[in-house]
């Protein structure tokens, strides 16, 4: 049976430290201003969306509620690697494609920069290279070289102008048996990665046991990323 790569993010462990996002920037040499992975500050009960959210990180860590009855949760948000991916459907040149193992990728050589995918993604997971981007340091860091799958260029350290980009599940790492960098680096152990088609895998078990929640599930995009919602049971104050 083919694999279906998926991820579980445990919001009970996530404390919004952004280490996942910064390691993602580092391994993927993301240009300044571009994030494949962001950590949203939200309410524990609802799923937050990044589309049209207030600018920058001005409201980071600001809780909901009225003192002292407050709530605060974090939702790291990147490409959800949807099984029914709107970005893939709208791409007029099939630059966005979904591999058999569920990983949704952008072919940098095919992308024509129409940005339909940016508009179609309900998670705001994509970014666009409008111009020659700035990087810091000003040499490529992280993986540092091109990566092709099935002959298609799905990673290049210095981005061509006019292409869309997003989380690749660190395809160059998972193809050699490593975990995506955000999973590897999460200091809280909040991320699990594995094969959703294998019922014995840690991801499948976490979803089955704890009832993983997909973001904006009612849209029918069938994401491969599941969130374990904050469980307030057993708290001493409520």
């Amino acid at each position, binding site marked *: 049976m083919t694999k279906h790569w998926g991820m579980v993010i445990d919001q009970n462990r996530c404390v919004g*430290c952004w280490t996942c996002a910064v390691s993602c920037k580092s391994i993927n040499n993301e240009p300044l201003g571009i994030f494949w992975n962001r950590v949203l500050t939200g309410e524990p009960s609802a799923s937050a969306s990044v589309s*049209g959210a*207030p600018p*920058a990180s001005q409201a980071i860590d600001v*809780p909901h509620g009225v003192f002292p009855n407050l709530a605060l949760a974090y939702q790291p948000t990147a490409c959800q690697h949807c099984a029914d991916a709107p970005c893939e459907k709208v791409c007029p040149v099939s630059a966005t494609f979904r591999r058999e193992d569920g990983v949704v990728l952008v072919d940098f050589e095919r992308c024509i920069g129409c940005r339909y995918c940016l508009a179609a993604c309900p998670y705001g997971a994509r970014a666009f290279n409008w111009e020659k981007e700035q990087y810091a340091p000003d040499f*490529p860091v992280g993986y540092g*070289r091109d990566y092709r799958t099935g002959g298609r260029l799905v990673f290049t350290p210095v981005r061509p102008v006019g292409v869309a980009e997003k989380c690749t599940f660190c395809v160059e790492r998972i193809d050699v048996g490593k975990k995506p960098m955000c999973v590897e680096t999460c200091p809280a152990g909040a991320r699990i990665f594995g094969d959703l088609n294998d019922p014995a895998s840690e991801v499948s078990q976490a979803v089955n046991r704890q009832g993983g929640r997909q973001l904006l599930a009612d849209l029918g995009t069938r994401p491969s990323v599941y969130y374990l919602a904050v469980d307030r049971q057993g708290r001493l104050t409520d």
Partner: protein
Amino acid sequence: MPRIKRRQFIKGMAGGVAAVGVGLSGLRYLEPAGVASASPLTSAPEEKLYRTGHSNNCDGSCGHTVHVVGNRATFIESAPWESSIDGKVKEDYPPRICLRGVSQLQNTYSPDRVKYPYRRVGPRGSGKWERISWEEATTAIAENFRKAQEKYGAKSVWIAPYTGSLSLIEGVIGAGYRFASAIGASAGDFEGDNEGDSACPAGFNYVLADPTLPANGGGIFDGHEYLDYLNSKVIFLWANNLAETSIPDWRTICDARKNGTKLVVLDPRYTPTAAAADLWVPIRPGTDTALVDGMIRWIIQNKRFDEAYVRQYTVAPYLIHPLTKKFLKHKDIVAGGEDKYLVVDEQDGSVKKWDDPGLSKPSLWGTHAVGALKARTALQVLADTLNKYTPEYTAKITDVDAKTVVQLAELYAGNHPAGVKAGFGLSHWYRADLTFQALLTLSALTGNIGVHGGGVTIYSGALLTTAYDIPSWFYPDKKQYTYLPPMQACDAMLESKPYPVKAAWFMVDNYAQQMSDRNKVMKALNSLDFLVVSDYVLSATAELADIVLPACTYLEKTDLLGSGNYYLQYMPKTIQPLWESKSDFEAIGLVAEKMGVGQYFHKTPDDFIKEVLHIGDPQADPTVRGLTWDQLTKGAYRLNTESVPYVPFYNKQFPTKSGKIEFYVELLIPYEQEVCDYKEQAEAFPNNPLLQKYPLVFLSTHTRFRTHSQYCNLPWLKEINNNGEGFLEINPRDAAKRGIADGDVVRVFNGRGEMKVRARLTEGIKQGVTNCYQGGWATRQVKHYIEGHPNNLTHQIANPAQTIVPNFQSNAAYYDCLVQVEKVKG
């Protein structure tokens, strides 16, 4: 659609634009950036991997694997951990890294780096510099130090190698001390008298390690290894925003909770840590001692203390002399008697020496007639003194309601072992020594000291420094520097008290910004005849310097990290120093040569590391005995310790006069602090008349986006942190009273100074309390606050009680600070 709360957004979104708010061009200092331009690789690069330790002073002591291509570091990720040195123990040690660690690439290759030595050419602080050679710079330093020493005495040169790095060769236990000794200069104390972190250690010594005993060398300090929280049934994170400031430790807390451990967080702010807690207690800042006293009273009243432990391991049954307040000794009641504690035998009420073989069981309670004297037991004195802390009385002081006071006491006493992990925020108070004394008293009464999962920890890993042969490192040929802690340095510079300081050399220290009462600090530094600053960026301190030396980051030099945990982490030079930067060790060697003491620096860092660890020496400290050079340089090996995870006083041998836990502290009688009765802070306490003028407590806490003033200006970290701009957290009700809306520019002020910053209204802070993250830069070229810095507001008032612990004798009480806030018009 589900209900959506959109709180956060970073550029690069659907429909967003890619214009970047973090351009590099405006940040360049003295020279255009010299980093080589982009040359992307298309084939697999020749990559070398180095294991190093991040000697950052968050105390995290993370292990980093550094990927290097050519002479470029290209990626940093977490590194593995090995067994104990003797191979007997292999801990399941989780990976350790956080966003700051990952960002070290940007730090090393930052356009903010100081690249060459510079000499000041304009007035001090004018930003006018002339590039000079290392030869010229080190000659000028040697000449000016010599001049100051001839005119004002050897001690008038102050060497300040501080906590910007916690490594051995450079930083807080670094070569600066060796240099200070060699030239007879002054220097601060490596043990931790560094600005705001020494009050809690002082409290530790009061109760657990008598500072007058030679074996304690003027004060010791340690805590539980963080993995030990897996053994706790309840964890109290006291003034500790661990999930934000000690991020890799959070995993252990999560793992512990999976097994049912309860998490209590005490903090006036609703931090990410508080948000995750089972119980959040927004206590009034500075009143923690009173809350602990309320818990102790409840535990005593309800007999929830560990009677057997208290009798065996504490001074509880010892009688107190009613007149002198000292322990009543046999010699006090019998002429020519012995210097031995007295107790009352529970069986027949007779007074006996504590070690009398005929003693059945010493009484813990009561007032007993001893000749003409009526003497109480130490526990009775404690109980009587704290009896006023009823839940209601405690609530009045702490603003924690009476029910919660009882709940906290029940949680603490009802879940054994109970571990307290304090944050250094707890230490940033005038009377933080007393708070720690109180917490240790609470911990002792409930049998939590020296047991797995218990204790009161604010820092762990000091054992590593006891494994080092510090005297051989610090005191070459038995020459010894004169001790002058940072809290006393300003007076030495300004008023020649206790003696004049006229020249200084700061290394890995940003004193001009990070020390409290910044206006005083600036005046003091400006009064110096000569100031040298070694740094890798042009810090606020470096801006005032006569000579600036370009320092290396941790990737560019050889060092050893042994701090924060129990692993020795060799730090190899992963890349050659960039531009003309040199390690502080090398810079010191060059100056030493010119001052005639070069012979003390003729060895390499590797040689010194071998010496300090006594590698190959069968007489090496037991914790490092058997360590080989191969082990040290190939991986991170753990000290050999009796307890794993490490627990201080696991053998219940306490280095106090009595050998027991001394919650009754004789040395504090002159300060009326022999037991942990709450006392008011110097400034921020309820009912201080100053509140009329300055009604808000001003905290300046840590954020995850930097470590003190390091890394504040790194693009990756700024992008996710309000573009690096500081803000004042204020409760919406306090803001409304002042007509302040979210985002308004406000002036924060008191009698010492002021700062301007934007207001951030948040329900996540208690009314009457404000907070501005410290550490942002306030230099000519980079301003993370609109004007000023949080330390313009803080004070330098030291608590005299702490002087009984020489190694921790003064503390900067950053949070003991009152301010007023007003909207800036226009």
